[in-house]
Structures are given as C-alpha cells and as structure tokens.
C-alpha cells in the first residue's frame, strides 16, 4: 500500500512550539477565546466589549481584545474568557451570527527585526506600507495558505485554521533556517 506517514512531518505540540533564527522569534500563542461574528449587530457588540475599530492587515494592534476584519460584515474577535461568556452560539436576533473558533484557529507570533524580511518571502503583499482601506480583509495569501494577519509593534501575528497550521509551521521552520 502507499504509505506516506514518513513523508509528512508530524505537527508540533502547539503549547511549546518555538522557532528561532533569521532575526526572528516564532511561537504559537493561545488567545483565551476566538469567535467569528457576522451581521449588522456586530459593531455595537464590539463597542460593548471595548473594541472601537476593526483591523485589516495594515493597522497595528498588540493587546486583547481585537477584531480582525474577515469580510465587510464579519470579524474574528479575540478576547478574554470573561468577555466571551457574553457570546452564545448561533443566531441571536437581530443580526448577529456567532460561531466559536477558539480551538479552530492557531495563532503564531513572528517577533523581531527579521519579521518584515520573512513576509517578503511569503507573498507579494507589501503589507504595513500602503494606506489602510476601511473594508479590507485581514486575510491574505501567505506561503500559499489563507492566513489572517495582524500587524504588531514587534512583528506580526498569523491566524491560520488548525488543519493548515502544521503546513504553515513547516514553511516557517524551513525559511527561518535559511540564511539567505
């Protein structure tokens, strides 16, 4: 039979996964809660949680809570467990669809002076330079995968769906190890 077990590297243990090199520190982080929220009631809900704006791939943010723009009417909210306690699965009238994704998204922080250079290997987007667009999605093509990116003061945070996270980690590991 066609056994591909050895070809594919095992996924890392996300609790302890770290990479160093190329002027970068890379680590998986676990925000307490991640929720996808869509609908006309999203802005007022965010405001009640202390989130004044939604962010695309060009606006910097460091702390919880934050809301990444996925589409014009949909965000990925990262917040504390206490804030998440006010959310509930499903549709609550009027105009709020809520889906928990705390386990479904892996967050990876790239920190250090080498972060911008690594981004230049991952794709065409010259992020962080062009002017922000109010409805732009934080999702971009990164190393061939769909990743929601957030600019931070010391680098970037990548949000990737859990099934694709090992592939992203493999890409990061290989490129961090290359010196050129």
């Amino acid at each position, binding site marked *: 039979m066609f056994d591909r077990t050895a070809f594919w590297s095992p996924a890392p243990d996300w609790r302890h996964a770290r990479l160093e090199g190329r002027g970068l520190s890379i680590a998986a982080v676990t925000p307490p809660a991640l929720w996808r929220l869509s609908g006309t009631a999203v802005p007022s809900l965010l405001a009640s949680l202390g989130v004044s704006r939604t962010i*695309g791939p060009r606006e910097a943010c460091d702390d919880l809570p934050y809301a990444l723009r*996925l*589409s*014009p009417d949909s965000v990925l909210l990262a917040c504390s467990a206490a804030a998440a306690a006010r959310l509930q699965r499903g549709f609550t009238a009027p105009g709020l669809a809520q889906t928990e994704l705390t386990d479904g998204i892996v967050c990876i922080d790239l920190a250090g002076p080498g972060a911008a250079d690594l981004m230049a290997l991952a*794709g*065409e*987007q010259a992020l962080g330079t*062009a002017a922000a*667009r109010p*409805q*732009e*999605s934080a*999702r*971009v*093509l990164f190393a061939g995968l*769909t990743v929601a990116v957030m600019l931070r003061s010391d680098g970037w945070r990548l949000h990737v769906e859990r099934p694709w996270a090992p592939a992203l980690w493999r890409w990061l590991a290989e490129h961090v190890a290359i010196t050129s």
Partner: protein
Amino acid sequence: MQIFHCPFCGPRPDAEFHYAGDADKPRPARDCSDEEWARYLLMRANARGVARELWVHRAGCGRWIVLARDTVSHEIGGSEPLNP
C-alpha cells in the same frame, strides 16, 4: 501575475481569486425553454476586449465580485461586489 482590485480589499494578487464565469447572467425561470436554459448554462460571451467576469476573493474577504477586465490587454477597468 495580474493584480485584481477587490472592491473591499483593494489591489491583491490574482492567486487570491477564483474565476467563476461570466457576470450579468440572470437565472432564467424554471419554465424557460431548453434553448434558453442551455444558453445560460453553457454559452460564454468569450469577449475579445472588455469582459465582465465573476470572481470570488477566496483567500481574502471571500466575497463574490464582478471585474471589468480586458481579455486582451488584461487591463482592469473596475470592480464591484455581486451584492452591493
């Protein structure tokens, strides 16, 4: 290697998008003739020049958009959401 302008996200590489056929093709009612349904299903405008094309911004906002794209020069005229 083209750059497409998503009306929400701005200029993004074409690899983020997926082609979905001609735009401006209203769905005929169920009582339409076989010919009319076949036209909707199978015929393509295949314009030489500016074409209005349906694309979905898969690796970005996920929204469906209509791109005015010149099929010869690859110049992008404008873009609008399928659902404004």
